């Protein structure tokens, strides 16, 4: 299995531990990642489409064309990149008029969108392309006794008619993937909540909204006695991890460690924390790592 690695903007710069984690678990599972220097930022909705739809589609389509030229499917590690690239691909595939309009723009840079490359997320690759059974075979260090709170975020599962992965109302894939590691995927109210991370980062949603949502998510996980919240998107991680420092002073609540799913899986695959960048998370993960070791 080989994919064009679409790292996005936030992950390699502010959440580079996640990049390490993704690279190392995929290497362990014999998946090849091809680094592509021609990929740019995915041109997300809040930044480009909102100001000029056509510019947004063309910039996103350029990235799709780069993967097509390499004859590789795209693997993203950011849910927002995943959703944006998938949506643009669907729009162009379904509307001949838009495709023609965008291909006219792309012809000025000798590119043409054809539509023969798929867009995947590291979680969809793990669930669909590798499969839970294969992952189960590779687990050498089951994380018994760990209570993990799956946080799906928005763009891994929505819009459903675009993503066609999991169920947007009652998602289950991340729960299944957590259980394969030997950890327990617990129920809590905010499992399908929104962290507003990308909205706050790119768009006009203020900090006040973001911290209120953050508090709801953390409190809900805390109430369910979660050892950690498990995320699949650098925006969710950034928001929930760093954000807890902002509210810690006002709220007498102990911070909940934030792990990427790839961190959790990596530990179950027997990788060391420093091979996964786990200690780069802002909320202290030491007690969690101790609990896993014991």
């Amino acid at each position: 299995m080989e994919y064009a690695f679409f790292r996005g903007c936030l992950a390699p710069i502010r959440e580079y531990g996640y990049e390490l984690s993704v690279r190392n678990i995929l290497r362990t599972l014999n998946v090849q990642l091809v680094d592509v220097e021609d990929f740019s930022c995915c041109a997300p909705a809040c930044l480009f489409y909102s100001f000029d739809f056509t510019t947004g589609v063309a910039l996103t389509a350029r990235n799709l064309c780069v993967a097509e030229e390499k004859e590789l499917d795209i693997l993203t590690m950011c849910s927002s990149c995943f959703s944006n690239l998938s949506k643009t691909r669907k729009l162009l595939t379904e509307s001949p008029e838009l495709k023609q309009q965008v291909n006219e723009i792309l012809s000025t840079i000798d590119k043409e969108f054809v539509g023969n490359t798929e867009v995947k997320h590291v979680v969809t690759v793990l669930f669909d392309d590798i499969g839970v059974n294969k992952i189960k075979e590779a687990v050498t260090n089951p994380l018994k006794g760990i209570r993990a709170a799956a946080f799906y975020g928005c763009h891994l599962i929505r819009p459903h008619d675009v993503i066609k992965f999991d169920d947007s109302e009652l998602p289950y894939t991340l729960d299944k993937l957590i259980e394969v590691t030997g950890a327990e995927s617990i129920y809590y109210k905010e499992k399908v909540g929104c962290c507003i991370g990308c909205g706050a980062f790119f768009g006009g949603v203020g900090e006040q909204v973001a911290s209120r949502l953050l508090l709801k998510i953390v409190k809900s996980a805390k109430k369910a006695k979660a050892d950690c919240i498990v995320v699949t998107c650098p925006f969710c991680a950034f928001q929930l991890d760093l954000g807890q420092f902002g509210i810690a002073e006002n709220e007498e609540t102990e911070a909940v460690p934030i792990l990427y799913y790839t961190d959790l899986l990596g530990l179950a695959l027997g990788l060391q924390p420093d091979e996964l960048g786990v200690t780069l998370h802002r909320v202290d993960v030491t007690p969690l790592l101790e609990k896993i070791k014991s």
Partner: protein
Amino acid sequence: MQTTSLKEIITRMMGNERLKICQQCGKCAGDCPIAKVIPEQFNPRRLIQKITLNYSREMLSDVEIWLCAFCYRCLERCPNRVAIPEILMRIRNLSVESGDTPKQPSALVKNMIETGRVMEVLDEVEEWRNSIGLPPLRQTVSEQALNEIRKIIETTGFKRKLGWEDK
């Protein structure tokens, strides 16, 4: 004077994804993470109502249309699959075109046009990445990619539309 209603413009812009009839059931607002926190400032049901009742021109200068974060929960819950985030995206485009928009693009947009990335890659970042064994990131995407991005921006007239260059 504008003779075409916003509703008509949006319906035309969205092509097949026409602005369907909204029942005003309010499921969108009930499940909107933003509306839950700041209901007075943002309410997707009310926004659709404004469009269908043609309160349109005022909307273009209203900051409310810029508060959606594209989580798509409203779309999933809507019994008629009204594509509220897509509609808001089109209204934002109209707002930018009208020259009356309260919203300026963030500095991230300029970064993307100049470097292909929305954030600057500081030297420290390269050092930190190197210290955990990651390959270098470089300050910009490839020269070819940068040229292509600039060409696209030029062809679509993006800077002109934003008022960064003369119309």
